[in-house]
């Protein structure tokens, strides 16, 4: 069976080593936090200036001065720290984070990422921290469905949407398979409810 978004988040969480410093992108990657073991010592970074971010705030916990990068109110865990934007992006761009988990429109077999712009001519461009996150961790994981709503593959030989970063993704987690990408091309690690041969037929990318 293919994975539900929650099951997929659990699989990503399973693969994050204990004591890692991790940034979870806006949207589906945020769900990964719900599956991280409390004892794993994983520290969440939010690029608006905080380490050891806690879960979403509820009720009286809501503090307008304490939000995540999606502007959702969050909480603070013991051992947290606050810092300004240049220091926060220094952490990313300087390669200090262990893992970033991002969403994507497309990922190429070489690890190129397209996740900030659909290329639609009337769209208002907005990049936020996407390009910094793309190059901002020792490992960049992408979480996405393997096919879009029209059934087109999102793992592609070459991205056709505008790029967010070149050769920056190390692994793609999808509802149907976990696939390593990079200089050696795409290599399937695990499949869910589908065979490798079926994947090969549906993707334009050679799969090892």
């Amino acid at each position: 069976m293919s994975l539900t978004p929650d099951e997929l988040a659990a699989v990503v969480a399973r693969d994050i080593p204990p004591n890692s410093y991790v940034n979870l992108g806006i949207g589906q990657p945020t769900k990964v936090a719900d599956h991280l073991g409390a004892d794993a010592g994983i520290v969440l970074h939010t690029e608006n200036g905080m380490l050891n971010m806690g879960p979403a705030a509820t009720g009286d916990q809501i503090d307008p001065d304490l939000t995540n990068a999606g502007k959702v109110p969050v909480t603070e865990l013991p051992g947290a720290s606050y810092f300004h934007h240049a220091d926060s992006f220094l952490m990313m761009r300087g390669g200090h984070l262990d893992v970033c988990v991002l969403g994507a429109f497309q990922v190429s077999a070489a690890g190129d990422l397209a996740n900030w712009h659909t290329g639609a001519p009337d769209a208002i461009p907005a990049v936020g921290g996407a390009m910094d996150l793309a190059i901002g961790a020792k490992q960049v994981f992408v979480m996405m469905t393997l096919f879009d709503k029209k059934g087109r593959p999102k793992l592609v030989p070459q991205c056709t949407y505008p790029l967010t970063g070149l050769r920056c993704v190390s692994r793609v987690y999808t509802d149907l398979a976990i696939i390593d990408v990079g200089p050696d091309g795409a290599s399937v690690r695990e499949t869910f409810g589908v065979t490798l041969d079926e994947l090969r037929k549906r993707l334009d990318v050679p799969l090892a």
Partner: protein
Amino acid sequence: MIAGSVDEAVAGIEDGSTVLVGGFGFAGMPFDLIDGLIRQGATDLTIVSNNAGNGDVGLAALLKAGRVRKVVCSFPRQADSYVFDELYRSGRIELEVVPQGNLAERMRAAGAGIGAFFCPTGVGTPLAEGKETRTIDGRDYVLEYPIKGDVALISAHRADRMGNLVYRKTARNFGPVMATAATRTIVQVSEVVPTGDLDPEAVVTPGIFVDRVVRVEARNYTVQGAR
């Protein structure tokens, strides 16, 4: 250093200024100073901020008042950025989209006297088009230039009478960087304390970067994400 009112704090901002505006969404947004700027009347402004306004308040109100020629930001498009969206789609405002980390680092460079820097973000993407690139030690970089402000409008938590500042939680965001990058830094705070009351080890923005401070009443702004 300590202004008696918001209007006094924002006096003298000139038409055509580049104004750095703190805040990430609503957290750290200097609402009172922006309202003061609207009353003050300066126009033809270039605004540098992470976003381009939400709803009808803060930056969105300044945009709506027709005072802004250009916005430099990382993320203009949001669920409630309808004021910006309409100005942009009708061609009445210019937009320069800058990756968030570049926005911060380019302002830091302005504050630090750096002439330009080779940056790893954006290589090979449309936002690097036409920019100088260089390979250094096997990695590709794009050359980025400082963003300097004539004025910075920021919000902090507490100030002392020398202009030393501390912030609160993630409302810190761009404030300390913008304070270094502007010719004149104007700060709204919730509290002004006597000099000597802030822990010298915990001052985030030293007063050398601050020109005017004004105390404002705490405001119950809506948390965007909670809507």
